[in-house]
């Protein structure tokens, strides 16, 4: 990264639905995919637009909000633990399951480790104490077992299904 010395560099990101985002460099570098883009193209011009064909505007805005806050937390040193937790809880509170899925898909594509860790834990918490059917609905999993196969799996792991309601 040859432009590191500059005061404030803006990275341009273009989403799948054609929206252009202007992101501060430290925030954009949280995205592994953006980072490697610039690592590979060291001579990229300042106004290079990084295309993100797998991410739409809504989740990207959410991700930028999250990363921005976390970059700031880190810059403030120590990243005051309670403060971060409070932010994370606030951040995820009003997100619907649909939004959460969009976020994790985008975070996975952009490869942001910190956010992925946070999102997987959030999803796990939302699935906790739920039925397997709920998980199926949550992830929209299609049951591709034949009835015989399903029965075989049930039998194989019989002990795990003991005491579980069929609904």
């Amino acid at each position, binding site marked *: 990264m040859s432009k590191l010395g500059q005061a404030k560099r803006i990275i341009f990101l273009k989403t799948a639905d054609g929206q252009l985002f202007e992101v501060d460099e430290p925030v954009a570098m949280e995205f592994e995919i953006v980072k490697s883009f610039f690592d590979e193209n060291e001579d990229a011009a300042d106004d290079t637009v990084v295309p993100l064909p797998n991410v739409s505007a809504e989740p990207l805005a959410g991700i930028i909000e999250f990363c921005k806050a976390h970059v700031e937390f880190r810059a403030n040193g120590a990243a005051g633990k309670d403060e971060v937790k409070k932010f994370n809880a606030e951040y995820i509170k009003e997100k619907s399951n*649909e939004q959460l*899925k*969009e976020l*994790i*898909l985008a975070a*996975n594509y952009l490869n942001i480790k910190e956010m*992925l*860790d946070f999102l*997987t*834990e959030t*999803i*796990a*918490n939302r*699935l*906790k104490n739920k039925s*397997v059917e709920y*998980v*199926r609905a949550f*992830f*929209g*999993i*299609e*049951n*591709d*077992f034949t009835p015989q*196969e*399903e029965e075989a*799996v*049930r039998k*194989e*792991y019989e*002990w*795990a*299904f003991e005491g*579980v309601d069929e609904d």
Partner: protein
Amino acid sequence: MEQDRISELPDEILHHILSFMATKFAVQTSILSTRWRHLWKFISTIDFDSFPYHPFCSIDYSFMDRTLEHQKALQLHKFLVSTTIRGDIYTNLVPKWEVFDLPPSFNAQHYSQSLKQISLCCAHLNPTLSFEGFSSLKECVSALPGFGDEVVQEIVLKCKLLKSFTIDKCRILKYVRIFGRSDMRLKHFMFVWRPQQSPLMVEVDAPSLVSLKFCGHLSRLCLGELPCLVEAKLFHDSSAIDVGFVREILDHKLAHLQVSRWRAGGTGSRSGGEAIRGWVPQRADSFGKPDKVSFFFFDPLISSFFFFFFKVWTAVQNLWTTVPKVFFFILFSYFG
């Protein structure tokens, strides 16, 4: 269309999500689809938290064995085994705490490099676990009856990253030493000790210790330099609380001190409870000035009632199983 997209998530992320779940639940996800069938085998957590336990019935724990046989993960970060019943009263009242043998298919040593969190309650480890290579261990909860002094020492000395250490229901401990390294990272130490005949001595000298919780009965507690200590909770279980023991705690600059005890019976003219109540408020200023000093006293009447009730209950249970039912039949028909 969205539902198709979520399947783009790589297995690693699904593993990660499943790793927060109890193992039983993770196994259940195997019926979701062909893709999910084997997913659970690769997660880095074994969590048999709150598996069924009943003091009067024997429970088949072979499911644990069967689960572990399927385990294919290269690394294991968490291994948790505990029972549903955790209440202090309960452990107090069940005289012979039933333990089961951890299946030999679980070889903790095999995962020693990667295990970060280990929690074993009421399990027998066979062969005994050696904490020699557990270089990543950060959190350890041990409620193993066969846990000896030398194992505690070994954990403290060998697990360099250990942050949190809980010792519970370990019956053969005599002299617990939490010290030995200057670079120790231990922050939280919790010790639960049940009323015992044999004397116990605990020595704590951990430079980065933040919180200390102590519950039970002991002969002596020695505290070294604890510059970071901000929270101490003491649930003392002896008939007369040792004032010198609390003074030792107060010598350290505490932000939060909590002292409590059951059975405020006490011997002599002044019960331990009164001694403490009269003593701390005056002295607290001259010692470390804790921001908050609180005391709890459980009504001895209530606890003894529970104890009595439980004794009667077990007696009836035993009678019912040992004495032939015919006897009861004769007895009832005689009185009837």
